[in-house]
């Protein structure tokens, strides 16, 4: 168990590529840290530097107060779970799990005992004599976890450990990883691509982009107070809707959804932020839309009429997709996000918007509907820099969840 500190860590590969720039993070003992970000943003590189598999170009890495920049992986006492599992095919499951102990010179009896305990925890006891090639994906994954657990290392590093499993197994293993980490209380750094893993597993989430940390915080913090467009768009699924907007005087804002008046606390925050320009990008989370009929008139917010393109009834929610006219929101952050999501084609005119409505909503595919959105939950970003102008604002909790049905 250990405290890990990354102090201005920089990684530049020999070919000149700057993979990680000025990474600062203090990880407390026993903390579960998640690294997320689009492909190629330097997550694995960061993890490998902590592991000792990659050299640190600049800055310091401290484990329990000792600078370990120049220590070999074996002297750092850290275990790693690889995305590909990296099991030794010529060893049985038991030998795989016992390998770190064998290298450490532990006697046979102790190895057998520890492997047995780990196998029990991971429900692998009856597979100990089998070879990795005869195991299912989920079992292999657990063997890889077991190999990390047996020697009670100071920290676990996991690089997308569940990404090779199918969706159902991933959910199972996710809870298992979480349980194991809670039981052992071992400091963990976990790299993932998966929204749900990021939101549910970690104590704190680190969002990276192009080798630079964008924001560090608890999942709720990132969700409710994203520091910029990138984090806002990256965290949350389905993701936040972005529309270009214009700030008019007196707390009024114009978007392609029409005019709206901002609540006082947002207006004051905006005045303080003193953005140079009136052009902003407005972010609305899907759950902050609602069928207007379900919201009492007195409740503020803004209403608009729009033809609904597609309605997906999920039982507990209804997802309504519609298109609003006008130029979409553009910024480097959003283009990056779109590229990562694989839809960087600006096809058609207008912006596609996703709304999550109450199951009682009576929206029909292809028909016009009156929708409402919660103006107190709007996120407003500077259109040029992408910074959130309302980052620090504490909002009144009046999400559509409280709307009468």
């Amino acid at each position: 168990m250990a405290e890990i500190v990354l102090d201005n860590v920089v990684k530049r590969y020999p070919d000149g590529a700057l993979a990680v720039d000025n990474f600062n993070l203090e990880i407390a003992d026993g903390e579960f840290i998640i690294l997320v970000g689009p492909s190629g943003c330097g997550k694995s590189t960061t993890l490998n530097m902590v592991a000792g598999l990659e050299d640190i170009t600049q800055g310091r890495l401290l484990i329990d107060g000792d600078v370990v920049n120049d220590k070999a992986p074996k002297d750092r006492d850290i275990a790693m779970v690889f995305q590909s599992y990296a099991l030794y095919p010529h060893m049985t499951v038991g030998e795989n799990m016992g390998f770190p102990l064998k290298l450490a010179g532990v006697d046979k009896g102790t190895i057998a005992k520890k492997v047995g305990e780990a196998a029990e925890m991971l429900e692998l006891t009856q597979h100990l004599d089998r070879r990795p090639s005869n195991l299912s994906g989920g079992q292999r994954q657990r063997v890889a976890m077991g190999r990390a657990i047996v020697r009670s290392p100071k920290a676990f590093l996991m690089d997308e450990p569940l990404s090779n499993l199918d969706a159902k197994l991933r959910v199972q293993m996710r809870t298992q990883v979480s349980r194991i980490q809670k039981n052992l209380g071992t400091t963990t750094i976990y790299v993932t691509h998966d929204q749900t893993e990021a939101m549910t597993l970690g104590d704190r989430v680190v969002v990276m982009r192009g080798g630079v940390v964008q924001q560090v915080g608890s999942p709720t913090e990132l969700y409710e107070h994203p520091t910029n467009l990138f984090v806002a768009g990256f965290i949350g699924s389905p993701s936040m809707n972005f529309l270009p907007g214009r700030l008019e005087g007196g707390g009024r804002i114009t978007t392609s959804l029409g005019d709206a008046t901002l609540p006082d606390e947002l207006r004051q925050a905006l005045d303080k932020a003193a953005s140079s320009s009136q052009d902003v990008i407005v972010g609305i989370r899907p759950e902050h839309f609602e069928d207007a009929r379900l919201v009492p008139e007195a409740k503020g917010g803004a209403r608009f009429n729009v033809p609904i393109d597609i309605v997906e009834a999920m039982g507990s929610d209804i997802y309504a997709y519609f298109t609003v006219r006008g130029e979409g929101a553009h910024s480097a952050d959003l283009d990056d996000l779109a590229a990562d999501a694989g839809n960087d084609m600006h096809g058609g005119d207008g912006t596609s918007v996703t709304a999550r409505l109450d199951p009682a909503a009576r929206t029909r595919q292809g028909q016009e509907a009156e929708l409402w959105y919660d103006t107190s939950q709007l996120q407003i970003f500077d259109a040029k820099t992408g910074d959130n102008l309302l980052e620090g604002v504490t909002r009144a909790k009046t999400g559509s969840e409280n709307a009468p049905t």
Partner: protein
Amino acid sequence: MQQETTQRKLTWTAVNTLVLIYAFVPVVWIISLSLKDSASLNDGNFLPVSPSWASYQQIFDNPDFTRALINSIGICLIATFVAIIFGTMAAYAIARLDFPGKRTIVALSLLIAMFPQIALVTPLFKIETALGLFDTWLGLIIPYITFALPLAIYTLSAFFREIPWELEKAAKMDGATPYQAFRQVITPLAMPGVFTTAILVFISCWNDFLFAISLTSTSASRTVPAAMAYFTGATTFEKPTGPIAAAAVIITIPIVIFVLLFQRRIVAGLTSGAVKG
């Protein structure tokens, strides 16, 4: 569908049989010749009418042949062993490490493999006589290693490239020193490649005639392929066909044993299950 597969099977069986017959006729012929006695040698029968071990007896009574057999086994085993050791290390470096001159090494080793061996015989002869290596085991082992190494490096580096890189990282994370990772993780996985290469190298040394005949002069280091050329018949007018055939059969046996012994080690897909995807 059903019919198609039966037909396909039949076609394949026919083709395979043809190939096998083509390959085995000379072998059976040699065996048959080695079992004929000198009187019936030219009788035109494909199979011997009255098989006899006379030729075998004759060659094993010949001290030159038994000595040559020992030379062959010793020289080829040593050359193979050394070539595999160095080849493994070189191939590992080539497959795994980035160092200046890597391409040059690969290109050079290929160049050596392509060099016409006959052009080297005279210079080698001169060098070895000058150094006192002529007609010694070492005098043959050295050129054998030279020509076996490119083969070994090439085959082995292909095998090393197949081993997932992540296994080594995993070993490092599990607390292994680089040597331990190589010894306990990489080597076991490379074994099929090592054995395959060993077989190829051994065969190429075992079958060499050119160096064996030109770099030896007595039975002190003459190997079997060369020794066979010095066989004599019972009389000067008689050709030693029977003994040569018998010797040819005898020297095939170690190769067959070598291959059978190691073949079981060449388990295809040993690395399966290591990494997913």
